[in-house]
């Protein structure tokens, strides 16, 4: 079984978001980048399934410029076998999906996994686009993934419940908790990751369909109005008469 795991390079979850003075770009100064937390579920589950089957390969794919390589090496240290970097800044979801679809087709991967969405762009789009480009099913967002031969059984989250879906390879799934416990690299993994193959390929396809004109931060709160704990019931009156939300 050939797994392709798509990882995105995103600001650490503790990052305080700031933009360049013209608000056109995210200000990367002093920001620590990590593997997108949702993608860690995809990566770990692919490695677990490979180990359980006793055969197969896990390839990580990132669309990004050379500065994403430390996180690609981290994915190799966690347990992926090799990596591909499409050498281009990720312009929008459509552009990224085109790159993934091209790599997936070229390498004839059986299972294409990624996180539910990236925590920076929050598109929640790439999985469906890749599935449609390749003409194969997408299961998104998946909370559970088990494989038996070429057949996968997944739990797909729907509002208020879940669906059990069975698909044959090849397919795309976007992953989220509680699929697995994401792994962290161990010392042996870090040592071996240095020599694992990382191939850099050029971007393909059409240009992006969407462009960001401007970023903005949410409006600041006016300040908190404190209510005495002894008189907590007063809060309910304020919520009805002042805030008018209940």
């Amino acid at each position, binding site marked *: 079984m050939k797994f392709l795991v798509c990882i995105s390079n995103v600001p650490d*979850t*503790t990052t305080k*978001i700031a933009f360049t003075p013209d608000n056109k770009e995210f200000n990367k100064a002093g920001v620590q980048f990590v593997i997108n937390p*949702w993608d860690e579920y995809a990566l770990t589950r692919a490695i677990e399934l490979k180990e359980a089957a006793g055969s197969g390969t896990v390839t990580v794919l990132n669309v990004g410029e050379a500065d994403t390589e430390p996180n690609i090496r981290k994915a190799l240290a966690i347990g992926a076998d090799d990596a591909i970097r499409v050498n281009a800044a990720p312009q929008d*979801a*459509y552009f990224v*999906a085109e790159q993934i679809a091209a790599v997936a087709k070229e390498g004839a991967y059986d299972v294409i996994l990624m996180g539910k969405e990236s*925590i*920076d*762009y*929050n*598109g*929640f*789009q790439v*999985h*469906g*686009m890749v*599935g*449609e*480009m390749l003409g194969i*099913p*997408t299961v998104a*967002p998946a909370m559970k993934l088990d494989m038996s031969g070429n057949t996968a059984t997944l739990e*797909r*989250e*729907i*509002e*208020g*419940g*879940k*669906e*059990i*879906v069975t*698909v044959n390879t090849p397919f795309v799934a976007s992953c989220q*908790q*509680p699929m697995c416990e994401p792994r962290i690299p161990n010392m042996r993994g870090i040592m071996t990751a240095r020599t694992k193959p990382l191939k850099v390929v050029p971007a393909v396809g059409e240009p992006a*369909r*969407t462009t960001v*004109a*401007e*970023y*903005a*931060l*949410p409006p600041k*709160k006016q300040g*908190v*109005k*404190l209510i005495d*704990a002894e008189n*907590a*019931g007063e*809060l*309910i*009156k*304020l*919520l*009805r008469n002042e*805030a008018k*939300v*209940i």
Partner: protein
Amino acid sequence: MSVLVVVECADGEVKKSSLEVASYGAQVAAQLGTTATAIAVGEANEANLAKLGEQGITKVLFDAEPRLKDFVNNAYTKLIATAAEQEQAKIIVLANSNIGAAVGSRLSVRLKASLATNVVELPKTDGGQFTVKRGAFSGKAFSDVVLSGDRKIIAVKKNSTEAKHDAGKTAEVTSFAAQLSDADFADAPTQVVMQDQAGGILLPEAELVVSGGRGMKGPENWNLIEDLAKALGAATACSKPVSDVDWRPHHEHVGQTGITISPNLYIACGISGAIQHLAGVNSSKVIVVINKDPEAPFFKAADYGIVGDVFDVLPKLTAAVKALN
């Protein structure tokens, strides 16, 4: 040229988020000088579909194929694509739900349309550009995105726009057949399992939310959260540490790596307010924080706060709500 709105139904009712989407679509149609047509998915009821006239929908397409009751990605995509071609829709509006995102992303490739998800406002169409405002950085920021091409798909974030109600207006419900075949249902679910929702209120769509963190000290104390939620008619939620240790199910986890919500009222009980948690809730209209630590960072993001022990405060709030009603 028209606007096509995808309305999700469950148990015969149009979902609340789809009423918002219908209203949004009708307003976009008015901006562009055209009309809005809806296509129904899920378990729909014709009488309820006709009521979409109240949100400004002129016509509703309804395919009575029984297998459309449950979400099937391929079948839904084909159904909506067929409707979009028939109606010559240039704009398709859907909810930023798990269904909307799954279908919208496939449709954007099939119909060669540009796609924006997580949209929070009506589009701006001045200067020949089509711009939408959407949430980014997991609730920590917004971005204005320009959509190119002559076909566009917009997925609207729940609770970010209000559904208008023009009482008494009705839409014309028309039967529609997308000629779906067995192959279109190949990825149909083998089983659908629904959770027991507290009071039947779905967290992503809830207007009022009561949420608990580690300060609740254990799952056995959640009755305090549930009692207040029940009295208010609110949904319950939790912070990441709480779902990580399985005090509460994962689908209740709000935050950067859980779900982001924007209810009218968010009451945080025993949650310190780490930046990752704030990201998931900071578009709530009113935030109330109850925490015994006056230095908890959440107070900086709150509208109202009580510095006190949640075990004392919560029963008082529940009693006050009951007294009010």
